[in-house]
């Protein structure tokens, strides 16, 4: 383990909870909370996996993901998308944008951990 995860989410208490459970599992966690410069932050840090919320201030998670997928360096980067919307169309939008996995809020800690492990092992 010891791999890097970048959590892009604007709710501080969710960031804190996810950071805690991933750190306890041996992951090195960095966080970011707005959409404006999220793409630059990913490109600068090049984590092993990104956990990306859909509703972010400045830019949506879908737009961020599309930009990441258009760059060679981040084309294959595992991205776990989090959203409060669980409708089929939201899942389809996430898939079209290039999400590696889609998770609907509220999720359990175990689900997040399992998804992160699978995607990085992947």
């Amino acid at each position, binding site marked *: 383990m010891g791999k890097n995860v970048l959590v892009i989410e604007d709710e501080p208490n*969710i960031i*804190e*909870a996810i950071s805690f459970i991933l750190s306890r599992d041996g992951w090195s966690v960095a966080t970011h909370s707005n959409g404006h410069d999220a793409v630059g932050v990913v490109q600068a840090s090049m984590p092993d996996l990104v956990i990306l919320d859909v509703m972010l201030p400045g830019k949506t998670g879908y737009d961020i993901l599309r930009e990441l997928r258009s760059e060679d360096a981040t084309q294959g980067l595992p991205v776990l998308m989090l959203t*409060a919307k669980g409708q089929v169309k939201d899942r389809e939008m996430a898939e079209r944008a290039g999400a590696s996995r889609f998770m609907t809020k*509220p*999720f359990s*800690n175990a689900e997040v951990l399992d998804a992160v492990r699978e995607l990085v092992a992947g």
Partner: protein
Amino acid sequence: MVQQTLAGSRIRERRVMAGLRQAELARQVGISGSYLNLIEHNRRRIGGKLLNDIAQALNVEPSLLSEGAEAALLSALREAAAETEAVAPELERGDEFAGRFPGWAGLIAEQHKRLRSLEHTAATLTDRLTHDPHLATSVHEMLTMVTAIRSTAGILADTKEIEPEWRNRFHRNLNEDSQRLAEGAEQLVAYLDDAGDASAGMTLPLEEVEAMLAAHKFRFDSLVNATPDELSAFVADQAQLTSDAARDMAMTVVRQLRADARLLSLDMLERQVEGGKVAPAQIASDYGVPLSTVLRRLAAVSDEMLPMPLGLVMCDAAGTLMLRKPVEGFAIPRFSGACPKWPLFQALSRPMQALRQTVTMTGREAKRFDCYAVSEPIGTIQVNVAPLYHSYMLIVPLEESGDAEAAVGSSCRVCPLAHCEGRREPSLLADVG
């Protein structure tokens, strides 16, 4: 007596359902096509041997052609039948059923009407749930709080050894998030309570705009010289518009109809429609205005200037009907897709080309209409960007009878036309005969 006068309409409907051409049926019963045409348009009375011969050729009881049941009731029964999939009503015996048991048939028609009303309410509420920005934001915030609480509580419950400062922090987070969740829930309940009290808002924005346009008969000549503020005040003052979405949509339409009125004044049009003449292309040419302007304007002034009101329908490039001025006998579907054979849609594939076609609407009345359609680009022209188009169709009712140049329907479900290449879904009516 009234029913006897409709025998021709019933013959025409049965013939169309059977997929027989007028000339073919005429040949089978030994009369000329033109005479059958007069009969079908109720211009010649029919009885005796000829009625029996036609009934035999159409494989129906003569009494069904001569007597029939009340047209509106039958129409309602057919609509009810077309919208059910679980059972298969004996459509070919609809006349007989309505004739023998008018009370029961009326009950079915009434219940179908009630069902439609309830479906409309459900569609409106669904639309509100889907598009209400306040509701969407509230639910999103609550789900975010629930997620934080669930995750934090999971950590406290599942982590055997946790440092005191982390435990304290998570307890504090739980307290904060649960308070925010409670406040959010209270606000949401208050909002829904208020929304529940509002009898307004039970219509979709487009329906509100249509109601407003109908109230003004599509005429906004009095606003030709209005300032932007006066225009906004006018729209804000319209009782039919209960939401910002409806007011925004109405503003767009009113601006366009006002611009039409500026280009084609009542005086200019009055000279052009003298004697009930409707010649859109000539008007567009004489005054150098876009044909779509003429079509909208003629529809708007027809109620007062012409012997009969003209209809108008508009769609975008996806074929979604966005504007409609109904005209009797030309059924425009509200929720389902319209007939793809309408010139309105054909115009989309031939932008900027004026189309004119005489059509017959399928159904008991089989009314004929002269339709003018054109598709014109919207927005500003940009380099290397394909324009979007709006298509307009003016619907002019025709008095005189004639053979069907092109039979069109309302929507597939209630259209009896057999062998239609444009059919999207089966019609129960098509199985009849």
